[in-house]
């Protein structure tokens, strides 16, 4: 059989430009690191030059030293907060995806229950937290519920929007070939929703940590089995500013780590096809 004529080159193009790759990756790492370092150096210099007392503003070196010295006591709090955040995030992802799918596939259910979801979203967690603390015996469970509430909504709404965003004509094509509902979901709706889902995950990751920390502040828990928020509160009562800062450093490192994992995951899942993750060349 004769084949169609093509003027386009007959070999697939190599898409990822390998040439720029290495230098660019180096720049991507070096630039933010340099900025960070310059900022810390300026801070250090300012504290030293103005002789600012540590109970007002500790130098970065002192914060680091405090962090190292207190690490054994901070470590358990770090794991506590991290575990709380990740569990809340996992719950939010699962429940958001599940309920979002139900909403997207059934407008009637969505109509009935969406107001509840919005209520959860618009009521400040700090206002609900005390109630949850009263109703739920286990502190950890109460904190988990708070963090979950905060992280749940972006997963829910992004899943719903994502599943509804499938191309109209592709949907018609699936109907033309008599696709089963499961096939349509699996091969069309779910992949269409993935970019929205990943965007939701980035937001939910940050919110889960915020929820975990805020809820712990409200709980005002003290004792052994507590997270970084409690360490910050304790240090603040005792006016130990360097210790506050070192706990703070750990909190923001948790946030950074979650964010980076999300970025990496998003790149893995969308990198080869979705506009948001494709680098433009030239």
């Amino acid at each position, binding site marked *: *059989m*004769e*084949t*169609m*004529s*093509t*003027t*386009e080159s*007959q*070999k*697939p*193009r190599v*898409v990822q430009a390998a040439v720029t790759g290495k230098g660019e990756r180096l720049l991507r790492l070096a630039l933010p690191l340099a900025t960070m370092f310059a900022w810390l150096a300026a801070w250090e210099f300012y504290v030293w030059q103005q002789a600012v007392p540590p109970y007002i503003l500790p130098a970065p070196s002192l914060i680091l030293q405090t962090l190292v010295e207190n690490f054994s006591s901070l470590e358990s709090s770090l794991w506590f907060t991290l575990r709380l955040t990740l569990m809340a995030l996992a719950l939010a992802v699962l429940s958001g995806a599940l309920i979002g799918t139900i909403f997207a596939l059934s407008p009637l259910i969505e109509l009935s229950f969406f107001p509840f979801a919005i209520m959860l979203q618009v009521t400040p967690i700090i206002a609900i937290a005390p109630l949850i603390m009263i109703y739920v015996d286990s502190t950890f469970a109460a904190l988990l519920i708070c963090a979950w509430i905060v992280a749940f909504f972006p997963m829910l709404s992004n899943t719903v929007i994502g599943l509804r965003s499938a*191309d109209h*004509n*592709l949907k*018609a*094509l*699936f*109907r*033309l*070939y*008599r*696709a089963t509902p499961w*096939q349509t979901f699996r*091969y*069309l709706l779910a*992949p269409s929703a*993935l970019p929205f889902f990943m965007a939701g995950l980035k937001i939910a990751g940050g919110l889960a940590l915020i929820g975990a920390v805020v809820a712990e502040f409200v709980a005002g828990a003290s004792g052994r089995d507590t997270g970084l928020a409690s360490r910050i509160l304790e240090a603040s009562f005792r006016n130990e500013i360097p210790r506050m800062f070192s706990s703070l450093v750990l909190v923001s490192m948790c946030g950074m780590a979650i964010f980076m994992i999300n970025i990496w995951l998003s790149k893995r899942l969308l990198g*080869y*096809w*979705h506009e948001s993750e*494709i680098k433009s060349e030239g």
Partner: protein
Amino acid sequence: MAHQRAGVVTAMGIVPTMTKADSLIRISGVDKRFANGTVALRDLSLDIGQRQFISFLGPSGCGKSTALRMIAGLTAPSTGSIEWSKESGAASKHVHDIGFVFQEPTLMPWATVFENVYLPLKLVGTSRKAAQPLVEEALEQVGLANFAAVYPRELSGGMKMRVSIARAMVTRPRVLLMDEPFAALDEMTRIKLNNDVLRLWSEHDLTVIFVTHSVWESVYLSNRIIVMAARPGRVVDDITISAPYPRDEEFRVSAEYAEYCKHVSKALRSTLDGNDVDH
């Protein structure tokens, strides 16, 4: 492989009927009113013969896409019926028998060219292994044999359209429905793809129903042109183009071609008289 079935698609469902030699699809008295009150089509009656290359030509909003979607069974007519012939040998409304090409390539961006073309077969349960030669053949027919592993974003507009055609052809349909498939392409690519479609049509004993805005394209391709007018959408002329096939560049510059274009243009212009058409 194709299961023989014939029937009438009406607002109420499929009712078996109709026998007429050569006629493949009979559209009788079809109206289409949308929920918002728009009358997209009024009293459309049309016999589409087997192996015809038929073009729907008309201004924007005259119901060309609506007619095509109804023929494909994607929307039901409000009144009237669309019958598929029993005797035509074409197994009427079977999934395998219709290929649809949209105005946009409508590819899945997350899937490779191979996966995109494999989709129709996957949906009817053909295993990847069994489908492989069919997909490869379809890609070869559109000159994209080397692009199976590539993602759609790495292709030009014309190449994406070819993938879309390969996907429509992979089930070996009897009828190919095309809704302004080349409207967004440049002139050169469009001419090339016109020739490609003509070749597919003759090699595969296809019936092609082709929607277009372009007089020149419709005359070059079809042996029959249905000229339509808008508000409400209706057929105003049914023109036979009896120039012989194969048609090539020679035909494109012939006096005969020019004469047909003039004739069809005139018919099309008459649909615009006294109409505010938003092109």
